[in-house]
């Protein structure tokens, strides 16, 4: 079922081809699966295994969501196929007090931080139990309890907010950092510039995590900038920047931990460019065959971050095929259960359309709510 998660010959290809790789790209895991002792962030083995298990969950969840979308059971999915190490490694490097400001591909980080699979699935179905109350399209969840922000679709808007949040914490002398996710396409947005500029000037404890996955829908990374790299952009803002191999979980953990430590020490922001690849289309609405060649994608499949991590686990005798089979079966059961619950749940009640626009309903919304509830579709709502 999960053919992609097998020890394959990722080591037969250069580690990060088709990426603007430069001297100083942080890599920790070597081609034989072992870790470079001079770079090793010394991640506890239990944590490594937990992250691997979580990456498998994210991968299987991704595949299941695409399936559900193709079956017409959900409307949309935007996934993280191939980017699991960049997302999970960075999330795992944060402390409990730190906050995440997501783009829209980081459900893995939300689940890692404590959002339940059920809550995620309710959002995918837009039902009454959805944390966003069915008001947003799939993959636009929210989870305050996990210190994970609310997702919007416009590109880059979360970046300045992550800076403002960290800035406020700094003013209050509260020890925390924010980590903000965005793709390389977002480095062309107004708010990347604004966020980097404000963070540089006010030295906010912010980690900018750019997932350079090569594509902004159909537009390749080289169309986003004439800079030699995206990390290089940090120089102009006075922000320390680093490139890492984004498919190397250990490298991502290392650079993120360093960035969080810098923030905690009052050193301000860091820009991380995680070099990875968007194996899938932009979303289920996209057909990447129209703009890129399969052989390039195949090269990247060989560098699958799950395969790579599995190789480390094998080398260190931390994982077996039997455990893999057991884990996949367990996840399959959890997914089936979450999907069934989400599919069974009722849609949001009509009247909830008007809640939360304001803290309380102004007269116009009271009128419009009454109009809707007296309308021809009010009866039998939820039974269609």
């Amino acid at each position, binding site marked *: 079922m999960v053919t992609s998660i097998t020890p394959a010959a990722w080591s037969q290809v250069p580690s990060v081809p088709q990426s603007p790789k430069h001297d100083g790209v942080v890599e920790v895991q070597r081609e034989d699966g072992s870790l470079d002792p001079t770079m090793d962030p010394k991640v506890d083995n239990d944590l490594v295994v937990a992250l691997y298990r979580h990456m498998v969950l994210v991968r299987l969840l991704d595949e299941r969501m695409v399936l559900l979308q193709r079956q017409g059971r959900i409307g949309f999915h935007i996934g993280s196929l191939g980017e699991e190490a960049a997302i999970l490694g960075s999330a795992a490097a944060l402390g409990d007090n730190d906050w995440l400001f997501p783009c829209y591909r980081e459900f893995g980080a939300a689940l890692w931080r404590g959002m339940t699979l059920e809550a995620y699935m309710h959002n995918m179905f837009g039902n009454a139990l959805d*944390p966003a109350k069915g008001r947003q399209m799939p993959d636009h969840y929210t989870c305050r309890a996990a210190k994970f922000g609310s997702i919007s679709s416009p590109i880059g808007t979360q970046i300045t907010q992550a800076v403002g949040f960290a800035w406020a914490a700094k003013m209050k002398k509260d020890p925390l950092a924010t980590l903000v996710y965005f793709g390389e396409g977002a480095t062309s947005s107004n708010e990347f510039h*604004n966020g980097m500029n404000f963070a540089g000037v006010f030295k906010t404890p912010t980690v900018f995590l750019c997932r350079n996955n090569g594509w902004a829908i159909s537009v390749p990374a080289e169309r986003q900038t004439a800079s030699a790299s995206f990390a290089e952009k940090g120089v102009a803002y006075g922000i320390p920047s680093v490139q890492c191999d984004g498919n190397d979980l250990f490298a991502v953990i290392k650079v993120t931990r360093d960035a969080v430590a810098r923030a905690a020490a009052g050193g301000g922001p860091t820009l991380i460019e995680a070099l990875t690849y968007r194996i899938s289309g932009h979303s289920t609405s996209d057909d990447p065959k129209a703009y890129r060649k399969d052989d390039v994608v195949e090269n990247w499949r060989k560098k699958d971050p799950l395969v790579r991590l599995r190789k480390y686990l094998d080398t260190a005798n931390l994982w077996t095929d039997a455990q893999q089979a057991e884990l996949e079966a367990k996840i399959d059961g959890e997914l089936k259960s979450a999907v069934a619950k989400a599919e069974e749940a009722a849609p949001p009640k009509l009247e909830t359309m008007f809640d939360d626009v304001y803290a309380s309903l102004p007269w116009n919304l009271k009128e419009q709510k009454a109009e809707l509830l007296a309308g021809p579709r009010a009866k039998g709502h939820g039974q269609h």
Partner: protein
Amino acid sequence: MPQMNMVQAINDGLRLEMKRDERVVILGEDVGKVGGVFRVTQGLFDEFGDDRVIDTPLSEGGIIGAAIGMALYGLVPVPEIQFSDFIFPAYDQIVSELAKYRYRSGGEYPAKLVIRTPVGGGIRGGHYHSQSPESLFIHVAGLKVVCPSNPYDAKGLLLASIRDPDPVLFFEPKRVYRAAKGEVPEGDYTVDISKASVVREGKHVTVIAWGAMLYEAIAAADQAAAQGIESEVIDLRTLWPVDIDTIVESVKKTGRVVVVHEAPKTCGFGAELIALINEKAFLHLEAPPKRVTGFDTPFPYTLEMEYLPLAHRIFPAIVETASF
């Protein structure tokens, strides 16, 4: 009771609230050391320090985006946009983010700001220091829009806005920043958001205005009174949610209505007000509702006093409507 102009009253309100609530922070261009280009924040930097009165880089999107982040953290930011003409780099943050945060997060993340910004013409500011973009914000679900006309309301509405749970666009009519003077209580009071003020009672025609144009409406009503036409002049004070009850009650009494605003006519707030009046008081109308507004042009420099809906344009509209 001290006499203040609007600049002094807003400054007084900001100082009071910053003393009362340590979560309140001000950020914007030139708001700190110099106290704002209109001096509305004068003295606050010295009193509260650069952590609470913050001179920012010259970026409206950055100011509002960062302010939203601060609000999510639990502060109560009161950012200033130096002129409302310059608010558009922040429009994405206001429309896509601020206005929708509570709703899109199922109530998990209410984001509350009061965005103060000078509005309107008559100061020889040309295209980019004169416009009245209120409709562009009234149209956005989730925002409240306030525009006081006098010092008392300015302070009271500002304090109410800062304490309101929803994001507020607080438009300050710069033409009367110093010209509008009046008694302002020392200390704490609020003016209810969503309550219009009937500043002059009359039975023949309702004249609706706000901000700097209120004074033009009153001047026109004075002229009409000399001809025996009694105008009921309403200062909306809060544009959204608008005080529909006060409007409808007045129109039902007079049967005639003139709406005045500086913004261009087409899709200006007057269009919405007249649509609401038609929906709620159509059978009481004795004359076609009338708009006296800016024209559908960019805001002109040399001819600004011909563009603005001043008393010389409002007066004939009152007469025409009253005698229809």
